[in-house]
């Protein structure tokens, strides 16, 4: 095990897939660091509704400020960055991802691998499921002299994607996004290349879904919240649509299949979980500043996340969506429209209730983060509804994404313990 200071997602387990993922990330950041010399073009963009295949088809390298912010938190840098941003006048009330990113930028823009990140050639503002994204790139735009491609993805307020919504997104891709990418890279849009990428995406997505659904086994071979952070890494970030991603997910799937065969529980920072005592569905993003401490609070109780909504922020694949090479832009539009944070509250409640049932969960837990209103506003309503519909008890804890001031370990541990003891007591023949 590595220490917290040097922890990055790939350090947690040393399975072959993890070694591969680590190498993929390292190569990507090497390319980014070298971009000013090699002349490779870069684009800053977001995880939900990311257009990775389209970017790949233009050979433009993505930088994901959200991932940088969470990595800054895991490296223990976010407190300092947030404080830099707040000194510049950013309110204590707003999203700490933004402040961590701005602070990092003002502190030399050193990325998660310790290498300097290149300035963007394009800001691709895929405005999906999060109002703050728009402000974030308005802020970055003031720092960089580069074009912004804005893609407005409408919200699935009524629980469905209409033809009008889809057309709106596809037309924007054609008329707003692609021309900016063409301009920035000096290349023409190549739909055949895009189709090839999308075909590889679908292949990797099949394997990812298989891995996430493996948690239906008892004991679950994976942790679908903390552990899944690592599993979704490649597909949510810069690698979807690459041969690397296909290979990664094939390998991961084989590893998980082997765990199932051996009846093993999930890998945790402290080794394999021996006894699965509680099966939990989790809603909301993790806390990144105390990620391992937080995870350990679950491990100590024998609690395994069998499903989570956070593992769907970069795409809800388990309800059937796959990128489709035969309808490239339409399929990108459907992808953007379908991300978890773009779903209405009733749809989120449906999904959570389904997870509780399909994954035979003992209960569900909401980690409500101060930063993210897209997730958090309405979570208390979600709590009540999912409890009523699933008949399983819900738990509620509060923390933040990357601001350590909002992670009170004693407080959270107290609630988690109370919650797990309640689950235990409620079991038929529950312990005293």
């Amino acid at each position, binding site marked *: 095990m590595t220490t917290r200071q040097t922890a990055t997602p790939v350090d947690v387990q040393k399975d072959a897939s993890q070694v591969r993922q680590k190498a993929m990330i390292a190569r990507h950041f090497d390319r980014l660091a070298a971009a000013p010399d090699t002349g490779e073009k870069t684009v800053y963009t977001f995880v939900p509704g990311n257009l990775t295949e389209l970017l790949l088809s233009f050979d433009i390298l993505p930088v994901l400020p959200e991932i940088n912010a969470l990595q800054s938190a895991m490296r223990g840098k976010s407190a300092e960055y947030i404080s830099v941003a707040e000194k510049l006048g950013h309110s204590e009330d707003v999203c700490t991802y933004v402040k961590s990113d701005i602070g990092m930028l003002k502190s030399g823009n050193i990325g998660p691998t310790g290498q300097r990140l290149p300035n963007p050639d394009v800001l691709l503002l895929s405005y999906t499921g999060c109002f703050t994204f728009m402000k974030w790139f308005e802020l970055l735009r003031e720092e960089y002299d580069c074009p912004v491609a804005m893609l407005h993805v409408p919200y699935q307020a009524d629980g469905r994607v209409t033809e009008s919504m889809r057309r709106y997104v596809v037309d924007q891709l054609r008329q707003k996004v692609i021309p900016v990418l063409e301009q920035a890279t000096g290349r023409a849009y190549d739909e055949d290349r895009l189709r090839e990428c999308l075909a590889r995406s679908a292949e990797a997505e099949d394997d990812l879904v298989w891995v996430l659904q493996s948690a239906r086994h008892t004991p679950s071979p994976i942790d679908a919240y903390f552990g899944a952070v690592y599993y979704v890494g490649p597909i949510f970030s810069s690698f979807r649509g690459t041969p690397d991603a296909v290979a990664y997910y094939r390998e991961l799937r084989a590893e998980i299949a082997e765990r199932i065969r051996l009846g093993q529980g999930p890998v945790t920072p402290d080794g394999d979980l021996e006894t699965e005592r509680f099966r939990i569905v989790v809603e909301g993003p993790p806390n990144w500043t105390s990620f391992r401490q937080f995870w350990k609070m679950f491990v100590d109780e024998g609690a395994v996340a069998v499903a989570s909504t956070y593992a769907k922020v970069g795409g809800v694949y388990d309800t059937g969506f796959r990128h489709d090479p035969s309808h490239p832009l339409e399929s990108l539009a459907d992808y953007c429209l379908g991300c978890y944070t773009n779903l209405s509250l009733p749809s989120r409640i449906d999904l959570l209730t389904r997870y509780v049932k399909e994954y035979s969960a003992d209960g569900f837990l909401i980690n409500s983060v101060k930063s993210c209103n897209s997730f958090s506003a309405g979570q*208390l309503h979600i*709590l*009540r509804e999912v*409890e009523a519909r699933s008949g399983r*008890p*819900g738990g*509620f804890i*509060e923390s933040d994404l990357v601001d350590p001031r*909002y992670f*009170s370990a*004693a*407080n959270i*541990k*107290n*609630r988690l*313990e*109370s919650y797990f*003891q*309640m689950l235990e*007591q*409620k079991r038929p023949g*529950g312990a*005293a």
Partner: protein
Amino acid sequence: MRYTVGIDLGSTTTKAVVLGDDGTILGRGITNSRSNYDVACQVALGEALINARFSLIDGELARSGLAADLRARQLARLERAFRAEQYRSQLRVLAKELRRFLARLLTKPKGLGKSVDQIVASMEAEVDDLYAEGARRKSDFFRDLAGSRYLALAEAEARATGVGFDTLAGLFDKAILDVENSPEAAGRFEDHARAALAGIPEVDERLPAAVDRVATLQLEQIGSVGTGYGRQRLPFPEGQIRSEILCHGLGAHAMFPGTRTVLDIGGQDTKAIQVDDQGIVTSFQMNDRCAAGCGRYLGYIADEMSLGLHELGPIASLSTSPVRINSTCTVFAGAELRERLSLGEKREDILAGLHRAIILRAMSLLARSGGVKDEFTFTGGVAKNPAAVTALQGLLAENYGELTVNISDDSIYTGALGAALFALRTTGVRS
């Protein structure tokens, strides 16, 4: 005799409840949690065991056929005398500690030693009055009781002799810690009880016999469970720790078996708990990260107004038109209070508004946890506050209709009682 104990380590007080192996409550004990947690547990348990022995004495007397009213009078006398003895022994240790710290002072102002002697002598002379029949004591905690007398006497002494008040007060602050940590100060039940007995006139002859039997009785602990805010620090193995949510649920069920919803407003947090007909928790909510709307908030207000915590409720109850207060933020409590007072608003109206604001926060926690079902049990320190209770009853009736609201005089022991019941279950003596 075998017993189990539940200890609730709260942010302001530590409580212990002792159960006999048939599940009856034998004794309750409480102490401030200012010193370290181990000591707080010991003191609370010690108090609960003293309390248990008194109830055993009561049982002996009942069996001997002494009439109830006589029994109560005899016991009350015995207990007052017992407390006086205990106070004296604590005072002796205090005097010793004061002199020890005095000796260690690098510079000894002239007359300081004499002043300390004078104060201690005055305090010793006051003991009988302090525990006389009908005497009112501000607190039953030695720290509070002795502290307020010591400081008052020190002030007078400082005025009269010119000895520095700060030096005198500083000595007390150091000495009191050791008194609280000292088993010698607490003394043995048997010694205090016999000394007490010797000092009481007109003793019924059955009392010394009962005291004899009970004082020598061996009390054997067969199970313990800890809970509360500080439960991780309790000197218990992990298997003997339960969350305060579970303990409060079970404790409230034990006190009022019809309980379905429990509200606990403690010093650091507020809890809304739903329980089933077995006292098993079905859902719960706790307040936000901050302590807004908790008992601690009232503590700040009391400090700000230079009042005792227990005085707030009665003053608020005098209000005829409570002011509207929208923030229960502890950080702004002082500023808000000063502004309102400067605007000429009445103290009782402001206090009534504050109590209502706290209860409003609790109402939203209750709603989050699944609403309020009949019967409703209100526990925690704030349940002793009449203004809070009135505000709560009004809002419950408005929002949930008529329901039974249970408040026990012993509500502060709810968590400890639940813990003791869990302890009893784990012993397997009684399911």
